[in-house]
């Protein structure tokens, strides 16, 4: 994994962490519209990062974008412990 790939994966992890925390908060505070806006923004940004990653470095989601380079890469893309 090169630096650009590591940096983008780090951004994905950070944004996913934000989304998970807000999701847990919203489960018990469903009427907090500020938190809901923050959550939706976090999810939008996360999706953007995920798409960028999958386009440039191969698939990370089982149900996601595969084969952007014209071949099925799920089998050969690195496992979490190989990153």
């Amino acid at each position, binding site marked *: 994994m090169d630096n650009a790939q590591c940096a983008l994966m780090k951004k994905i992890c950070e944004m996913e962490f934000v989304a998970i925390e807000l999701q847990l908060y919203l489960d018990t505070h469903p009427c907090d519209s500020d938190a809901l806006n923050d959550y939706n923004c976090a999810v939008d940004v996360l999706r953007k990062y995920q798409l960028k990653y999958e386009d440039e470095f191969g698939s990370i989601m089982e149900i996601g974008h595969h084969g952007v380079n014209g071949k099925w890469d799920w089998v050969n893309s690195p496992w979490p*412990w190989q990153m």
Partner: protein
Amino acid sequence: MWVYEKKMEHPIRVCRPDVGFAKLVITQYGGPDGELGASLRYLNQRYSMPTGVAKAA
């Protein structure tokens, strides 16, 4: 119901192999009194809770 992602939720760094410790981790993870069994019990208890908030959290 379950989606696999080829990524960690939190970064980890394994710096050296340690068979003894690996054995402990695997036992605690998947053994007879391990986290996997406990987590599935909690999950199913959760789905039988009476309110939506309790089911979700």
